[in-house]
């Protein structure tokens, strides 16, 4: 039980961050709580490096919640010189498939090494690298479309 409590306290912020980024702040705490409830129930299956496993559980719960709202919540972005670029990146990301978003954000936002991100998604590391490469390419393509250029101009002038 002490081990579980240690893992809980250590991983809670990261599971919460994952849930918040994929399901929105409103649902994040509930999803995190559910994630650890399931983890407790399946404690015998918990690997020594628990984070990817916990994020895999959280991922299923996020999908069940069916509320991918993070991309609508841009009021968390501070108004700085980078504001436009951040909004642009998030908008481009939101335009990608859910699969591409997951691959990119597990690395860029949640700081997982590729092998652990692959565990979360239930694929091999090699497959993950292929998916990451394609997702990056699509993100780059999305950023370079004229729509975003126009949008950037409109944001600058508004």
């Amino acid at each position, binding site marked *: 039980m002490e081990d579980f*409590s240690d893992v809980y*306290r250590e991983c809670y912020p990261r599971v919460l961050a994952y849930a918040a980024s994929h399901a929105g702040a409103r649902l994040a*705490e509930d999803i995190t709580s559910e994630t650890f409830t399931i983890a407790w129930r399946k*404690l015998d299956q918990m690997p020594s490096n628990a984070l990817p496993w916990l994020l895999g559980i959280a991922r299923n719960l996020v999908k*069940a919640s069916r509320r991918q709202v993070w991309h609508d919540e841009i009021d968390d972005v501070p108004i700085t010189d980078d504001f436009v670029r951040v909004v642009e990146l998030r908008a481009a990301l939101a335009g990608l498939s859910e699969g591409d978003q997951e691959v990119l954000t597990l690395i860029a936002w949640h700081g997982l090494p590729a092998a652990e991100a692959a565990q979360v998604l239930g694929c091999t590391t090699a497959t993950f690298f292929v998916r990451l490469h394609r997702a990056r390419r699509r993100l*780059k393509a999305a*950023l370079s479309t004229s729509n975003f250029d126009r949008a950037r101009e409109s944001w600058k002038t508004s």
Partner: protein
Amino acid sequence: MEDLMKELAQAAPPAPEVDRDRMERDLVRIIALPRERTARTQFLRRFAPLVAVAAVIALAVVVLPRPTPTVQPGAPAQWWHVLTEQSSLMVVGDPANPYLVQFSSKTDQWLSANRQVTVVQKDGRVEPYSSVDEARWEMAGKPATAPQVGGSRAVRIGPMRPSVQKADVSGFQMSMHSHVRLDSFDSLPTDPAELKKTLENLTGEKTPYRIATLAMGLMASNVRDDQRRAAFELLKMLDGVRFLDRVSLREGSFGVGVAIAAPATFQFSNVETQLVVNPETGLPVVKRDLITTPQHGLPAMWPISEEEYLLLDRTTIDPIVPGDVPVNGEVESPIVER
């Protein structure tokens, strides 16, 4: 490309602030909940039937005479053997201080075109669910029977008595949850839409939930792989069904499944039924009902009843039933009059 990932990292939403009070409160609640059985117990309980069957096969090979020449290799199997392990929860006791009990048992069933043999309440028990429930039961004086909360009957706590039911039948039961019988499963369509129409016509059932339960039952029946696949595709296309693309299972494996809103029980509302299948074999692994909102001290998405498929197999070995159990006697249910 690397620069793009760095830029994306800078565009991450800020990490949400952790509410330490809630975090610690949740931890206390979570570790008060019951856990699944240990892996060792799981392993023994899960594979004991397989070991028993393997032992019987070995014995049969050594002891029994060779099959007569009329039995051809590849001849149709005589029996469809289904071994399931069920568990379900019920709220009992004083409504002001209720507790949960868990019913758990196995059902061993052999089905053929003209014979059906079933062992029910095998290894059956009713016991307080968690340590908290056990403490409440003890505080109530460890009663041998406890009244259902919201019901008119009582529950007998302790072991269940197994019972053997043997019956001559005509044709194959379409599923364990339907009395419709078919001369053969061969004619069932392999197109999901056609299969849906067939189920509707055979049973008169039209609602998505009833069709879903029939299709789920069919998947556990002695049908061909293409028919089982059609049943799963049928489930996915029903109104209100949610596809579950990665469900954690015991031993760290994953299944795929479907979920559909289920009718309320007399104690639980906001229930959904899930069927999880092994993506490699297409065979059902578990069917369960979960509550989608917290109820009776249980969190949302907690299973309130489960039926785990331990064995689904064609066999020519005749049914093996407990010797000390009366056949076709009255089933001594743990649900009794108050």
